[in-house]
């Protein structure tokens, strides 16, 4: 893959074949994951394990969606509307809990971790960017202040660039470790 990615025109055919393999494997893996999920919850229901009612809800929902999708198709507007009406509020509520957890963490981080370079830098940067996010300083229209704000808002790009470089190097090293057998599987 690496060679094909580097030698783009010449390794195009090989890369396309490997990508097709990856798509097939990913699709089959998705089916296996779905089957495993359903069988696990069916086992919970059969054994009467604690919380099996939730498993029962999951299995019933899965079967209803499967049957409804097979009968009416995935492009049916009614089907899409019903599915959307269920999934959207659930996932939105879950994301709202993230805001709650983050506020609680903001309240407890200094009490739990104490005063350290990491917590202090995090607190200071969070306060600065929260203030900038409110937009009050930008509305003042001070040229000097606008220059400072522009500089400060450009700082995340520096960090993100370093983060991306680190991610690239880390992925490359991990690939070499796996290729040369230096990295075991996750089950070891």
């Amino acid at each position, binding site marked *: 893959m690496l060679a094909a990615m580097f030698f783009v025109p010449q390794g195009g055919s090989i890369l396309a074949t490997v990508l097709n393999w990856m798509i097939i494997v990913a699709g089959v893996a998705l089916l296996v994951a779905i089957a495993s999920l359903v069988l696990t919850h069916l086992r919970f229901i059969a054994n009467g394990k604690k919380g099996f009612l939730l498993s029962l809800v999951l299995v019933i929902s899965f079967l209803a969606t499967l049957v409804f999708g097979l009968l009416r198709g995935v492009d049916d507007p009614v089907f899409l509307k019903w599915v*959307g009406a269920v999934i959207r509020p659930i996932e939105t509520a879950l994301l709202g809990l993230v805001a*709650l957890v983050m506020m609680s963490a*903001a309240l407890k981080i200094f009490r739990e971790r104490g005063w350290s370079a990491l917590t202090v830098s995090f607190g200071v940067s969070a306060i600065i960017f929260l203030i900038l996010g409110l937009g009050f300083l930008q*509305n003042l229209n001070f040229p000097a202040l606008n220059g400072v704000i522009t500089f400060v808002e450009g700082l995340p790009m520096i960090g993100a660039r370093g983060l991306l470089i680190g991610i690239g190097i880390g992925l490359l090293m991990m690939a070499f470790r796996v290729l040369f057998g230096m990295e075991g599987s996750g089950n070891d």
Partner: protein
Amino acid sequence: MTEDHSELNLCPNCGKENLPMATRCVYCGSEMESLFTISGQAQMPDEEAEDSLPDIIEEIRNDPALQIPAEEHPSPESQPADQADEPTLPGDQLPDWLAKVRERAQEEEDAIGGLASGTMAMDAARSEEGSAGVEGEFNAWINRIREKNQQESSVRARQLPGESEEPDQVPEWLQRIRALQPHPEEETTHELKTRSNYADELPREWTDEALDELRRQDLAEDHAQETQPLPAAGAFAEGEKLPAEAQAKEPSERTQEEPEPGEDEFHNIPDDEDEYLEEVPKKDLTQFTEGEEETISEEAVAEELEIEGPEALAEEPELQGKEILAEPGQEIQQQKTLQSEEPVAEESALEPEKSEKFEQGEPESTLPQDESELPSEGKEAQPEESDQPRDSTAVPPDLLLLRDQQDRASLLASLIEQEGRVTAGKQPARKPSGRAGRLAVALLLLFGLIVSILIGPAAIPPETPKSIPAIALSDQIQAMAENDQVLIVLDYQAATSRELEALTAPLLEQLHTRGAELAILTTQPSGLFLAQTLLAQAGLPEDTQVDYLPGSYLSLISQAVNPAISTTGSNPVKDLRSFKLVLLVSDSSDNIRGWLEQIAPWIGTLNFAAVTTQMEAPVLSPYFDSGQLIGYAAGIADGNIGVQSTFSYRAYRVGLLLMLVMLLLGMISKAEADAIRREEERSE
């Protein structure tokens, strides 16, 4: 006589054996030449002997009696006495030489001859040696028996302290002493009985103890207290604690016993023990008391057994249990008695009674569980200690108890008191679960949201400055001409749909207004029903085609690598190179990176723009800075790039403000806790 002795010569003087060639005895130095002389021959001068010798020989030859074979006649050396005592021949038939011998034997004292006298001396010496050896062996045997008895008694004396250390096994001698030791109720009669026995029967052997008793008796008689009973030898240990015990005696006992005035002048402790008491350190006082009991015990027991006999043995089982309980108290009393020689103020160092007991190393098991079970001596010791002066300045430093030691002793005493009681276990310190804090935060958030909803949605003010990527994106959209193909890729989840749709809808509306041909593609199944809401918000027709591409962007990569694949089959996207702009609507920076890093290199002329969440925006900034992205809009802050009415900018700002307040509250509370802790540490 053995052969060895026959080879050796015996000294005629001392009878010791000497070598044959020795002329003098190696033991006594006497000459041994007489052995070489002929027995019966007179010691004459050499000339006279030489003259008489042929005559004697001639007579021997002519003597008919001597014609008898030599075997039948004993030799004159072997049986000289027999020949002298039992003459076998009549007197007229005696030879002349024999008659001379007999005459000479009657005239001289040493008629038996030197050889015979030496033999007799040797026999006498040997008989003396034999009698002396038998007597010596007998004496040695007696001595060995005596030594063995002494060793056994000393070994038993050494083993007794170790046995007494075991609280459950009281040694036999101690039990006898305790049995003989008078009980408080029987003390007077016992002492009187002992005294009367002494008066009636004097001991046959005056031992040291008996002499001590007599000396104490004399001292008591000299003193004004003439009625002081002579304590028994077995009660000697008890007699030692008389000074301290006198104050603790009950009045009834005082009436029975004689009073003890002048305690500071009189004591019945022997002088040798006084020296011993002065030299013994405080820690060894208990051992000293035990050892004293041991040294006195054996002989005292014998005396008491002689005095009381079977009566004491009969009382032994009854007294044994009481005395075992009374043992700690008695030991304390004995120790006090030993310390009574020191100034009274020194006893104030032992003020805390419990700590005193533990300082002395009293075993816990020997302590009575109930104070009421203590004998009268143990009970009465407490008021005595409380009456002692508590002037610690007069106490030697080695007897002072530190506060830490007293605290530890008190703690140990309290633990002992609480032993066996049902006490509540230590409750584990409950760590705050934080539910109250989270509830407060949730209520605060709800309050802000409700207030913002009640006030109503407020759009972002138009004068709010826009971000550079958002401005670039807006400019790119404005540059679109009619019939330009634009690919809209929907790659987000329902959770972030509200934020992304609020940003994307105005852009789609502008594109649609400009006459661009929109192709909507989703790589996730959820994108199908999410696209409906987006199209509704953008005002697009409901029949707008939304295609689903399985395999995520890997399929697009495959199409980009091999364009022939996209032209076959039912692929909704025939050719990526036909699009002028690809607008990525995604809540994942990884998916956007995949597009930019995996697909864009294969299609050089394709422009990419992105709409993402504010959380993912910093990661996309490098791609915008490098030109891989022509622009992007992120979050509610870039919501002013279009006209949208469903977005509540006020709620967003309230949320940010609450987050800021929470962060500051956390910092302030931490600073306050640190200040309180420092203040407490400073106060401590």
